[in-house]
């Protein structure tokens, strides 16, 4: 049985914000992550504020400039099956289609996907770790095979669990937030918070703030995007390693673009090293080999996750080879 909570389903975004701004309130979108957090009593939740009475936060539409607007409550299955998303923002369609299982994608939303809580098994169980206000990260010297190789900063070693977040960062998306002090736009790249900045929060969301929509700028012609996820089995699982790419080509040459890793760091992790190697170049075997080697430069594996280095290298090689073949 879940712990008791106050419950409200407001009829306006403003009312939702007001309810979320007080006490230990949590937004409920699809609930696929929140229900687990409640059940395991990971953090106290005094009030659940359901967003399901806000149909205006649902849906995918093209903007006048050819970009995309995605309501935060849009289900992941609706996103991954949307013809425009598949055709013009392929990496995002792929990423949304890689989340969990069909049932989870039918219920889980894009907003919930980028705001979900970490999956570190110490965080998800009875350990009072740094992220829950305790004094220690139990993963550093513990069972850390699924933890990060970048960005731990000597504090907390989670990986960000979202599949869509790296694709959104690669596509240079922006989140529109609404809160007690009005609304603001935050590039997805700046939306996530490293543990060295604040170990107790995953996003820049202030109290009472919600994500209302995601906007993606129109892709410049010649842009191709993709998402690749490696997991331990074929049915649902979180990424051991993943990569989202959005590369802009001029014939066979890469002009510029972004390469963003999942399963690597506490936030979606831009591999500027790979980006720099491919920029301005044709994706020859040599360039691809150099990029694959570069993806792990600066990595700081823990005792049990060193296998991720080879995994990321192999994945970059395969993904860039596919990109080259379709260029």
């Amino acid at each position, binding site marked *: *049985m*879940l*712990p*008791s*909570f*106050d*419950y*409200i*389903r407001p*009829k306006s975004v403003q009312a939702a914000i007001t*309810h979320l701004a007080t006490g230990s309130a949590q937004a*409920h979108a699809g*609930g*696929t992550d929140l*229900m*687990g957090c*409640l*059940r395991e009593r990971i953090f106290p939740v*005094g*009030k*659940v504020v*359901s967003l*399901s*009475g806000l149909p205006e936060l649902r849906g995918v539409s093209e903007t006048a400039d050819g970009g995309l607007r995605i309501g935060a409550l849009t289900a992941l*299955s609706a996103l991954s099956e949307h013809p425009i998303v598949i055709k013009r923002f392929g990496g995002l369609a792929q990423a949304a289609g890689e989340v*969990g*299982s*069909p*049932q*989870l994608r*039918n*219920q889980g939303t894009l907003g919930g996907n980028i705001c979900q809580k970490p999956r570190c098994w110490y965080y998800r169980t009875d350990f009072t770790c740094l992220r829950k206000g305790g004094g220690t990260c139990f993963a550093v010297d513990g069972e850390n095979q699924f933890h990060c190789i970048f960005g731990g900063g000597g504090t907390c070693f989670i990986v960000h669990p979202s599949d869509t977040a790296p694709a959104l960062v690669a596509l240079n998306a922006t989140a529109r937030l609404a809160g007690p002090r009005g609304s603001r736009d935050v590039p997805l790249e700046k939306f996530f918070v490293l543990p060295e900045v604040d170990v107790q929060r995953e996003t820049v969301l202030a109290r009472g703030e919600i994500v209302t929509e995601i906007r993606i700028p129109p892709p410049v012609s010649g842009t191709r995007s993709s998402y690749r996820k490696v997991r331990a089995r*074929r*049915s*649902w699982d979180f990424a051991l390693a993943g990569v989202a790419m959005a590369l802009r080509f001029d014939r066979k040459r890469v002009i510029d673009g972004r390469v963003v890793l999942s399963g690597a760091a506490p936030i979606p992790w831009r591999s500027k090293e790979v980006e720099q190697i491919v920029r301005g170049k044709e994706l020859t075997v040599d360039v691809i080999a150099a990029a694959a080697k570069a993806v792990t430069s600066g990595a700081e594996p823990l005792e049990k996750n060193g296998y991720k280095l080879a995994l990321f290298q192999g994945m970059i090689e395969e993904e860039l080879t596919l990109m080259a073949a379709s260029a």
Partner: protein
Amino acid sequence: MSANPTNGPGGITRRNFLTTVGAGAIGAAVSENALAAGKEVAPPQVTPAGRSVEVALRVNGRTHVVQAETRWTLLHVLREVIGLTGAKPGCERGECGACTVLIDGIPRYACLTLAVEVQGHDVTTLEGLMDGEKLGTVQAAFVEADAFQCGYCTPGQVMAVEGLLRANPNPSVEEIRRGVSGNLCRCGAYQHIFKAAHRAAELKAGK
């Protein structure tokens, strides 16, 4: 806590609860009127922790009006309040699929769904696939393909296949695998489950 729909928390009956609690009674009365008018019922204000509300659930084409706490899952209400035990509790954390039901024709996990969130939507459970006393098409295909051992995962598998076939009447083997990828089978009956899904598609097409 009582699963009896007429009892509120602490064994108070709904009627004497309404007459004894001032402000709460107004909220409850409003929701009752909305119900009578056939409108979707959303708690019009905060439902305090532990308080039951009237929840109208449309399950297998029939509306059930139950008293439920807002923290009760759809799985709990289906099984313990309404008495439909087709959906099974397995992991109760979105990992196994035993609790799969259709909501507006789409497969979802009843264990991760709050009952209050389902008001105004159509729920289909395994029982809803029956054709009177006869097994429904997907169920019959599972029997024909011998697609289970212990059978615990089967109701969820059947619902996942039903949802898949409603969206895609002629799925490829790969689409079938993906369609039931949210349903684990401890007995490892997967090959037969894939066959059953294929057979169900044929049966539905009249083959």
